[in-house]
């Protein structure tokens, strides 16, 4: 469309490949390659093995995987509930209040995750809510961190929603609760699942706040990857990282299947 001559097009594509492949494709390939190797001193990894994966799918690592999945599931469901509620409530407010509320719920994006971790640590290491040392403090911090993203994507979807639908429903005699349950939420379902997927992925990869909060019996996968690399076990770390990516992708794939079934247009 933009470049018409054949030669120029090939030149553009070459530049694209030269930029894109080393920057984006290579890192993932490197991790994948390393996870299957024992040495990497030449151009290619050597000493093919699946031993890292055997280690990465049992014992400590398996427990970390369960921990991560449960944390991400809990955090994303909570965040989706609170974020959607906030977005729906904000949509019913006057413009001034709405922008205040939107700003409040965007704030956790702008606050560093490390600081969110620190603040949760400071606040809930003391009564009345003593959560430090339990798994709940990790789930809580993750929820706080991802709620902002859930709120943002749901409220963008609400803005795009044609008010003609809810007005048609109201003219047919549906009360606001009925309109919400039977019209607005079903119409928002594709966006809700997208937001849930986003929250889940963010929580699966969360490291900063987790590093400050995790109790010994609730170690999520990213912490395990860090622990492995920190003690120099880069190849094991890569295998755990691949497990992390695969688990995230599997869940995202399942969520997107739900989404395809829920999109009507």
């Amino acid at each position: 469309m933009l470049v018409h001559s054949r030669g120029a097009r090939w030149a553009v594509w070459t530049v694209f490949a030269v930029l894109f492949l080393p920057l984006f494709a290579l890192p993932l390939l490197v991790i994948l390659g390393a996870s299957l190797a024992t040495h990497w001193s030449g151009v290619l990894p050597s000493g093919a093995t699946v031993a890292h994966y055997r280690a990465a799918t049992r014992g400590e690592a398996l427990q970390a995987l369960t921990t991560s999945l449960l944390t991400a599931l809990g955090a994303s469901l909570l965040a989706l509930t609170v974020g959607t509620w906030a977005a729906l409530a904000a949509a019913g407010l006057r413009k001034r209040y709405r922008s205040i509320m939107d700003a409040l719920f965007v704030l956790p994006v702008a606050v560093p995750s490390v600081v969110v971790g620190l603040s949760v640590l400071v606040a809930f290491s003391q009564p009345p809510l003593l959560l430090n040392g339990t798994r709940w403090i990790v789930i809580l911090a993750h929820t706080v961190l991802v709620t902002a993203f859930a709120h943002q994507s749901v409220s963008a979807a609400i803005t795009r929603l044609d008010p003609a639908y809810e007005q048609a429903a109201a003219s047919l005699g549906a009360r606001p609760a009925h309109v919400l349950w039977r019209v607005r939420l079903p119409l928002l379902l594709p966006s809700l699942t997208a937001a849930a997927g986003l929250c889940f992925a963010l929580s699966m990869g969360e490291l900063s706040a987790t590093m400050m909060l995790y109790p010994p019996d609730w170690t999520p996968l990213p912490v395990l990857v860090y622990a492995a690399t920190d003690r120099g076990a880069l190849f094991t770390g890569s295998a755990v990282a691949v497990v992390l990516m695969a688990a995230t992708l599997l869940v995202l794939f399942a969520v997107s299947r739900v989404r395809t079934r829920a999109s009507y247009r």
Partner: protein
Amino acid sequence: MGIRLDSVTVAYDGNVDTLALDSLDLTVEPGEVMALLGPSGSGKTTALRAVAGFVRPVSGRVLLGGRDVTDLPPYRRGIGMVVQSYALFPHLRVDENVAFGLRARKTARSEIRQRVAEALEMTGMAAYARRHPRELSGGQQQRVAIARALAIRPDVLLLDEPLSALDARLRSGMLAELARLHRELPDVSMLYVTHDQVEALTLADRIAVMDKARLQSCGTPRELYRSPADAFTASFVGGANLVPVTVGTGGVSFAGAELKVGTNGVAAGARATLCVRPHLVGLGQGPNQLAGVVREIQWRGATHRLYVEVDGHTVMADVRELKAPPVHGDPVTLHFMPDDAVLLPAEVSHG
């Protein structure tokens, strides 16, 4: 059930300087089809939305069947509404769409099934009950939207430009369908918003012409067409030649010519606007002659439209297809019968 708007004023953004609706008084009798006709931004849709309850008047009252509903939310008003975009729920099948209003009212299940079937039958959509809206054509979606509004058996049906999303051929078919529905449901009052005078003239028992947030005139199609009361109505309903004239005795003078028209007792010497429909203007010799120069000629198949400049004013004439039409710049003579002209108060704004 009748509809009454009692000096309803609507202001958006609480700004009283830009009224969307300026103290509208309008009564729709039970079983009557009232068309709200006007250009975009004339306030006709606002009036309909005030009846539906989606805009709240700053002042005035809305009454349905004699009951003041001004403070009632839309879902308590029991009206049926069809909008331009249809707003069919994309996640529900056709029958679920039609059943929506009944479910919202917690109607008994057996009753719902029967009434949905009835509404789909009435609109000819029974064969499509299990489909989703996205699998239907525009005309079919339109029918489902009407069936959905009728299923709750409203006493009042509001139609907001229901045909404007359809192409011309479908539109005339749907117009006939709507007329049939009205015959089958003689007790339902309809408020029909449109900018298309053909729809209004075809369907309505009475037409309310709106412009600039105000009601300009209201009457039967025949009244508005044959004897419009103001220049805006004359030009918007059916199109009209409007020229400034001076009233004399037993006629008016325009462009140096004395024209014989009924003056209805307007004092001699007063300024007035003369209104003649283009299809009532003839070419050639006759009573009430006007001489002018052809400025433009359009062939419309069955007719020719001439734009003739008479003393600086353009006069339109629709004549039967001409064998040898005049060309640009030809001098021509036009005429019209005295009782085909209407004399309006002097205010030439749309000429």
